């Protein structure tokens, strides 16, 4: 079973204003705030006036760009204490969104992935969404054996909080689950563990 070098990891974009958009929704988290600032700077005053920003101040690396974001004359800036709250907020906005809405996502892979799940559930197409990765590449991992999701995984091998098996994180990524795959690390001979390593975070 291949662990590293799998080609399913998402390829990210750079956030720039989408000219085709009538309404802009920009959701970011932690160090993604920097990409939001760059995006807003590149917008015309008309685009800014049609833009809603959702920002979560939860951050794995402690980056906070709220003060910078407050400088822009956008239609609305909504601030959330956690990433999960921001994703729920995104869900609520998209529920009332109109045709011509363009979505911008930035932050950790887990945040972008779970936000994409919401966007997909509203039938948004890939060409209506831009995604820019920011900050560390901590991973969200799905345990293939018990289904538990672990956030912010930094090492190749860790103990699953759901079933307490030693999991090895494969580089295989599922957009639908917004997660990498974790499988039992010592499955062939219990106790015989592959070497651990820090993930490319």
């Amino acid at each position: 079973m291949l662990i590293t070098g799998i080609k399913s990891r998402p390829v990210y974009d750079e956030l720039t204003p989408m000219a085709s958009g009538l309404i802009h929704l920009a959701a970011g988290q932690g160090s993604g705030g920097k990409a939001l600032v760059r995006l807003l700077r590149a917008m015309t005053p008309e685009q800014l006036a049609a833009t809603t920003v959702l920002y979560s101040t939860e951050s794995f690396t402690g980056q906070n760009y709220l003060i910078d974001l407050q400088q822009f004359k956008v239609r609305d800036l909504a601030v959330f204490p956690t990433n999960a709250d921001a994703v729920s907020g995104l869900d609520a906005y998209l529920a009332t969104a109109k045709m011509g809405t363009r979505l911008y996502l930035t932050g950790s892979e887990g945040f972008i992935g779970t936000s994409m799940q919401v966007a997909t559930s509203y039938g948004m197409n890939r060409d209506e969404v831009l995604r820019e990765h920011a900050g560390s590449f901590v991973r969200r991992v799905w345990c293939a054996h018990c289904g538990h999701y672990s956030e912010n995984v930094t090492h190749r091998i860790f103990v699953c909080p759901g079933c307490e098996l030693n999991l090895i994180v494969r580089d295989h990524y599922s957009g639908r689950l917004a997660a990498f795959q974790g499988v039992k690390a010592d499955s062939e001979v219990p106790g015989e563990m592959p070497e651990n390593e820090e993930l490319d975070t």
Partner: protein
Amino acid sequence: MTAISESAAFKTGETYTPEGKYQFRNSPEGVRRLPFPFPDDDYMYSMNLEPHVPAGNGALRAAFDIDEHYVSECTHRAQMLSDMPGVHYLALPHMLEAQWDLLELIFESYARDFPEHFTLTKNGNEWRWQNRLLGIDDSFTFGDPATLPMDPMEYATRQAQGEFVVLEEKDNTLVIGAGMTTQRADYSLKFNLGMSFFEFHGPVPKLHEMGILDRALKFLLRMKPGHPVRRVNWSLTVNPRLETSVETLPEWAPDRATVNGENAGEKVYLRIELQPLHRLPRSNAIVFPVRTYLVSLAELVEYAPDWAKRIHRALASLDPELVDYKGFHRYHAAAVEWLSRHDDGAPLATGYPWAPEGIQPGGN
């Protein structure tokens, strides 16, 4: 009459699990009819797609092959589905039309190719389906899910051998939208659902670099209804275990450490996958069926000695990356050593057994 009804009774008590003590074996004819996947002494991935037209009297005679294990495989499927609900059968909501397409394709093919076992009677959309092997006689309205006890795809594939993955065409690629996969080889349906052609092939070594994936996808996107294509693939599995998903890896991976030079003939099974792909007419979806055949190395030696020699050579020279990917680095040497005792080095024919001049099982 067909090859199967003349030669093989359908076995009913077979099991594919340790709890059932792996009560599984092939008849001599069952082995000699297999779609043996090694055309040469050396094996490497290739663009091995060919038109799925009937060939010979074995596994390639019917559009969807059934054999002596049909009844026990259907029993196994029912058991797996009830053991782990939501893991082996999944369908995204927008795949309903493709599900009906698939039901029609399977039932029409079975009724045409095995009329002694299956009958499909159509009166407009009022259909009657008789499956004498499983004792089923149902009437339903084609296109109306309320007239079936479950999803059309689940209903049809619970009565079919092999697994079925249905893909929709989107943005110039193929995306997995539904699957009945109680026999999958080392991947997760739940994880792979919604993935595109390049994404779900991500873990396979060399395919991308060899340009095979690009060409295969272009080929599949041009497929038309009524013109199926097929390919074969293979792996090795310890014990006749059909369900080898990623989810249950902790249950079956330890078996890999139990093989040695003495028991490899009984323990190691060649796992042949016959994959006939079809474009579905209404939904424009593509179905990727995987018909899996298990045969032990000892059964090959006994009933198909030339195939045993061939697999010895193919395994001995196999690229280490493929050995790793297919998951048998721990017992590769043991299997090769065991097989070497049954290979006299005589030259063998090249080509698949169903091709003219291709390699035949040998012996008699």
